[in-house]
């Protein structure tokens, strides 16, 4: 099958193409060069006046694993409010903040997304995460396995184990959970909460292990670097949501010691204590630090006003915030000496000072971080807002007057305190393509995604060049996944199944001896039943694995 996309305006930052009118060719599932005048074109799409980008990639969205299912269980009203009927092509389900997996796939594809990553896979819950993502149609998916609160790693650190052993354990975890990265959430803090600690700052010691969050961040950052795992360690830093936490965030950046480090949903970690209400924006300090340190990347976790539900491994902070639950019901779980899960429904209100500040802080960081290759467009779905609010967020970033209008509607003191009205920047389509395509593909090491050169998988999104960017980005004209047309005029026209991105770095299998002993003595499942094989991914779970290469650097 040879498809020609004729005369679209192409934005392909990975190949430095900024709005050039050109033709693209798809041969089966990949992009190819112009096959020459003699070639037999099976299908042609006239894209004159339309914008062409690679399929979008969401590098931080909670779409799999137990916590979203806990949120669905806790919040049946979401599904009651937004049931979606089946069609000849699509399954029924429900929408709102925690859509069913099938609707998640359809809605992402309808917005031009072709790949999404679940950032918090509990190793003991990895099967569920992959099963839910396998039931998320069209999208390719992947997960980041959570370490840094698991007792095995903390015991290694408490015993002052060699970095080589830690690297082996990290690599074994990636292999066993079929994940593409490692994530740390409130390093050591989830574990400390199980010992009844209610806070843990970056240089405070875990009450049992006498290990600091800084040490955990250092050893995991180093492990991923030495194993050659492309995606740097995503850190959900200590003290989420605590006024004054920007200092912890700056210290967390330093903990990386110059190695690559990614700070997740940084909006929730950029709070100062200025002003009468002792709550202020520290976006300027955070953005300045990101601009000055090329090893740091971030995603924002922008909030939007309305009802959502927050889901997090950070039981320490979720429990601390349960008093804000709206409606007043919440779940916290301690899980398998591995991590935890906290689910607290939340309603962000534009007339609430703190919520309005949160909204402004996220936008400030977006607009003050200079390098779009190091900042990613997320709402930390569903924590800041459901992923379906991305088109609205894109318009806020691309349209200053629209932003000004909304700024007039929020809590007046928050608007007055915010620098937002002075920030004139408007993101370009090229920058938007970096932030939602080329950047995520590069940071994840996906060489044949997120761009439109020969050899890339034909994940392509075509938009009408509508002046209203929200309308433009919420309804692409065409979306191709692996060369198949899956969306036409904003609606699903074919349903395909995706695959799972993973990394399998090399490691010394000797680690399995100590793991076997640990499993036998303490765990509730056998080590032999913990690991997920590639066969199981295909047969039982339903999503084949695609591996991304790791170029090991060796122990420093």
């Amino acid at each position: 099958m040879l498809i020609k996309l004729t005369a679209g305006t192409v934005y392909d930052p990975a190949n430095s193409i900024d709005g050039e009118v050109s033709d693209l060719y798809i041969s089966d599932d990949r992009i190819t060069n112009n096959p020459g005048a003699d070639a037999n074109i099976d299908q042609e799409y006239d894209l004159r006046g339309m914008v062409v980008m690679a399929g979008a990639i969401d590098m931080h969205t909670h779409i799999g694993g137990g916590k979203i299912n806990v949120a669905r269980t806790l919040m049946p009203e979401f599904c009651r409010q937004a049931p979606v009927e089946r069609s000849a092509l699509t399954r029924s389900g429900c929408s709102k903040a925690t859509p069913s997996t099938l609707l998640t796939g359809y809605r992402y594809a309808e917005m031009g997304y072709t790949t999404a990553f679940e950032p918090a896979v509990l190793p003991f819950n990895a099967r569920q995460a992959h099963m839910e993502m396998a039931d998320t149609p069209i999208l390719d998916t992947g997960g980041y396995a959570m370490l840094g609160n698991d007792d095995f790693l903390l015991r290694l650190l408490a015993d002052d184990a060699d970095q080589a052993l830690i690297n082996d354990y990290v690599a074994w975890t990636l292999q066993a959970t079929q994940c593409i990265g490692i994530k740390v959430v409130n390093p050591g803090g989830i574990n400390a909460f199980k010992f009844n600690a209610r806070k843990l700052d970056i240089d405070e010691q875990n009450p049992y292990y006498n290990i600091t969050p800084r040490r955990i961040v250092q050893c995991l950052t180093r492990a991923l670097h030495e194993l050659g795992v492309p995606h740097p360690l995503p850190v959900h830093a200590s003290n989420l949501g605590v006024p004054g936490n920007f200092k912890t965030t700056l210290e967390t950046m330093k903990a990386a010691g110059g190695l690559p480090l990614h700070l997740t949903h940084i909006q929730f970690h950029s709070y100062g204590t200025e002003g009468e209400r002792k709550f202020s924006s520290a976006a300027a300090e955070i953005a300045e630090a990101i601009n000055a340190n090329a090893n740091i990347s971030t995603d924002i976790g922008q909030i939007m006003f309305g009802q959502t539900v927050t889901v997090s491994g950070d039981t320490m902070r979720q429990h601390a915030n349960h008093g804000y639950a709206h409606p007043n019901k919440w779940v916290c779980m301690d899980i398998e000496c591995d991590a935890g899960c906290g689910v607290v429904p939340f309603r962000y209100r534009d007339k609430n000072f703190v919520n309005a500040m949160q909204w402004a802080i996220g936008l400030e960081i977006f607009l003050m971080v200079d390098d779009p290759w190091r900042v990613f467009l997320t709402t930390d779905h569903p924590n800041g807002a459901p992923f379906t609010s991305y088109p609205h967020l894109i318009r806020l970033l691309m349209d200053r007057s629209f932003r000004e209008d909304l700024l007039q509607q929020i809590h007046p003191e928050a608007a007055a305190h915010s620098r937002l009205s002075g920030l004139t920047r408007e993101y370009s389509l090229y920058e938007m393509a970096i932030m939602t395509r080329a950047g995520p593909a590069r940071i994840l090491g996906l060489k044949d995604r997120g761009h439109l050169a020969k050899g890339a998988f034909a994940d392509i999104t075509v938009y009408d060049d509508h002046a209203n960017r929200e309308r433009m980005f919420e309804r692409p004209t065409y979306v191709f996944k692996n060369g198949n047309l899956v969306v036409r005029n904003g609606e699903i026209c074919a349903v395909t199944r995706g695959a799972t991105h993973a990394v399998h770095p090399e490691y010394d299998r000797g680690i399995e001896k100590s793991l076997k002993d640990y499993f036998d003595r303490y765990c509730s499942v056998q080590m032999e039943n913990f690991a997920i094989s590639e066969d199981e991914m295909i047969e039982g779970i339903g999503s084949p694995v695609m591996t991304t290469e790791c170029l090991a650097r060796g122990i420093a």
Partner: protein
Amino acid sequence: MLRHNIACPFCGLCCDDLTIESKPQQLTVVANGCPLSERGFSQTADTGDRDHRPRIQGHACSLHEAVAQAADLLRNAQLPLFGGLGTDVAGARAALRLADRTGAVLDHMNSAIMLRDLLAVQDSGWMTATLGEVRNRVDLLLIFGSDIGKHAPRFHERFFNNAESMFGQDTALRELIMIGSEAGASSAHADAHTTTIPCPTDRLGDIAMTMRALLQGRPLQAEDVAGIRVAQLRKIVTRLADAHYGVIAWVAAELDFPHAELAVQAFSGLVKDLNTTTRCSGLPLGGNNGDTTFSQVATWQAGFPTGISLANGCPHFDPVQYNWKRLLDSDEADLLLWISAFDAQCTPPAGNTPGIVLGRAGMHCETEPEVFIPVATPGLHHAGHVYRCDDVVTIPLRSVCVSELPGVSTVLHAITKSL
């Protein structure tokens, strides 16, 4: 042949350390068994040709014919009901897909029991721990109910009386308090660290509410509640508050009285209150026939755990209206698709509603269904996945013996294709 590290799907603990001896026509648990696994693995799997072949109105037929007949019945039904739903993840996925196509109602055979926990979560949430966490951390276990060993036979052995725990605790010193009608039951060890307090099951919620009041320092005029001295409850509350990591467990199946979800809500409220100053977690135990598995898959695919109607084209949840027994008793459902792949004795109720039954081989239905298709059992005859009662860990099931029988998902996908 001996197979090691085999998982058992026959109760909510899903122990995965079993050794199974596999001989033709016979599976035997030779290590780490319990009454439920021994029964489950050895339940008549193959009693001859009659049990092995599909039937239409009692007459043996090919699988192809049975599938075509089932599709025909589903096509012509006004309100098909998918009941039983004793199956693994793949079977649950296939059932939800077929139900979506046919506009069916889905309700698990254990729904009345499941909802005791689920309605409490929907209304107020809870704080819980998984089994691995309990094994290493619990220093005081309070059980509301009595004989959890009947529903989770190896719970005490694996998660309370385990020889070693991770944080240097002497597990022999763990305290156990049981409040319930048969308190003092079989599987617990009776010693100086065990306290048993008799209490009618339907008053357990009152006990938990009294304990919450005591913990919150509210004045109480009553001197005893459900036959238990308030002074004694006060002591238990103090011990829970002094514990480093208390665990409050119950088995929803034991709470067989109206509005038992209010009792679960009271247990969960007590747990939440205790976490103001110390750590404590709830532990909902029990589960079988893939109930947790079905509720998980249904929740991610359809947004609701059970009691789901897809008749109007989109998911609608009503645990009363879509209760499977009510739909059969009222004749509202005009076709029953019953699935029970784990237990041949979980048969559809006798009645007039025409039925398609996907049953574990050896099942004998009181009323011969329109279509009977014997199916393989996950974890015995084919690989699969089931959820543990803690709603988190998915256990991989292995194939331990060869069977020609099709799995539930194979049959349901074939029916879907034939529609």
